[in-house]
């Protein structure tokens, strides 16, 4: 599928076409009344490519979203207990943070290559690699969020009879959500970008299109897939931001109250 359409078209053109016309653009212009096709010209931007290959693009995008979502969700499920362990036992914090940082330093191509003998050539290689990368950011951010919970709040909750489990999920976790979502956004955006490298084992979502476009020297395929990839990262980032606003309504009322107070102060000053 990596051969540009124009090449295939050229092969199918009947030999009876006027041969005195030189240059394949002219030949194609004769074959199609709509002018030279952007596929034939191998343009960077090509609406025809998007139209004719929409199914392929959709499949690649869905695979991309699936790999990213699975990696981030699994990463979050592993990072949360790791952060709790690092908080509970000080001695464990150093090794946990150190190990995740070492994993972060390993280049993604090497990470996928090292995981290949473990999982074979499969989607698990890509997801596992991406989970390991996301751990670094998620563990640190969850830990920072939990540690930033004011001591008085914790004391007050305990005084109200909160057990440690209810304290964690009812008080500390909600207060840590801004830090957690900040980490989740960084992890998601970099995971979307890194999923493309999964194309070395054939599971790279839009990265597969970039790789096949490179082999076939198909500019429209590469550019379209790259742009979709960046858009995907932006959309994911905005969705997570919206999720945070939804989950932490109190930060908005606080901000509103603060700005109202400021406005009131300004008014008083103006009156005085």
């Amino acid at each position, binding site marked *: 599928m990596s051969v540009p359409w124009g090449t295939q078209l050229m092969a199918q053109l009947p030999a009876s076409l006027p041969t005195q016309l030189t240059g394949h653009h002219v030949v194609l212009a004769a074959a199609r009344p709509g002018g030279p096709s952007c596929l034939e010209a191998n343009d960077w931007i090509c609406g025809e490519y998007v139209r004719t290959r929409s199914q392929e693009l959709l499949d690649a995008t869905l695979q991309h979203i699936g790999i990213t979502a699975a990696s981030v969700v699994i990463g979050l499920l592993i990072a949360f207990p790791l952060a709790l362990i690092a908080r509970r036992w000080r001695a464990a914090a150093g090794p946990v943070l150190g190990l995740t940082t070492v994993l972060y*330093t390993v*280049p993604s191509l090497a990470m996928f*290559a090292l995981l*290949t003998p473990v999982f074979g050539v499969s989607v698990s290689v890509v997801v596992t690699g991406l989970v390991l990368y996301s751990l670094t950011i998620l563990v640190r951010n969850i830990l*920072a969020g939990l540690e930033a919970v004011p001591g008085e709040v914790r004391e007050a909750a305990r005084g109200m009879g909160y057990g440690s489990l209810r304290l964690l999920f009812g008080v500390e976790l909600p207060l840590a959500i801004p830090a957690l979502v900040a980490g989740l956004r960084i992890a998601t955006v970099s995971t979307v*970008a890194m999923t493309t*490298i999964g*194309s070395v084992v054939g599971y790279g979502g839009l*990265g597969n299109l970039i790789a096949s*476009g490179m082999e076939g020297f198909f500019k429209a395929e590469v550019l379209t897939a790259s742009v979709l990839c960046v858009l995907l990262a932006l959309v994911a980032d905005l969705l997570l931001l919206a999720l945070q606003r939804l989950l932490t309504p109190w930060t908005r009322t606080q901000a509103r109250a603060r700005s109202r107070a400021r406005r009131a102060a300004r008014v008083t000053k103006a009156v005085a």
Partner: protein
Amino acid sequence: MDAITGAWQWLTSAANWAGEKGVWHRLGEHVQLSAVCLVISCLIALPVALWLGHIGKGGTLAVNLSNVGRAVPTFAVLVLLTLSPLGKQGEWPTVIALVLFAIPPLLTNAYLGMREADRDVVEAARGMGMSGPQLLLRVELPLAYPLIMTGLRSATVQVVATATLAALAGGGGLGRIITAGFGNYDTPQVVAGAVLVAVLALTVEGALILADRLFDPMRGRRRRTRGRGRRGGRGDDAVAIGKPA
């Protein structure tokens, strides 16, 4: 376990280390490419960041740059540059891609370092009659040193990792051993190449941490005044701003 013994055999056979496709040649390519790109990025990013930090402008640019850098896939940029007219100019597409991805961590960290230099200290120095350049070189730069080094470290890790990806777009370097292994379904070679890349990345990171400690202009003094908390905090900055490739 087969893969480990296979990779060990691959790594211990002398034939794989010699010649045009051998480890030594690929390692040389990798290190040379990384070093050249790192120097170019420092020459571009650091003066800009120090100047912006000194005059206190361009904060949004510095922060947004690193966010954009994170969202753009390295692989896509490498391939796009290879397919562009630049692709016929030998190693230029790779060099440009590496420089593009090394600039955001350098610029952002150096800028933040300059801005976070204790304003009271800077004001005091100004009050003592220090001129702009003196202020920059003797006060702000030493105070910004930890974050500048953090930026340098994450840029270096980034460059070494991106240089590995250059192999996907037909470039040289150690990544070539991995991609060649994938191409031949030669798992031992894939694992051996991956081990070499990982060892190189970790060695470079370790060497930079060591250099950071050795060349700190405020060595000893900073630790005494601020305690260990400051040093411990550095890794967090690196992670928050860096981006794996």
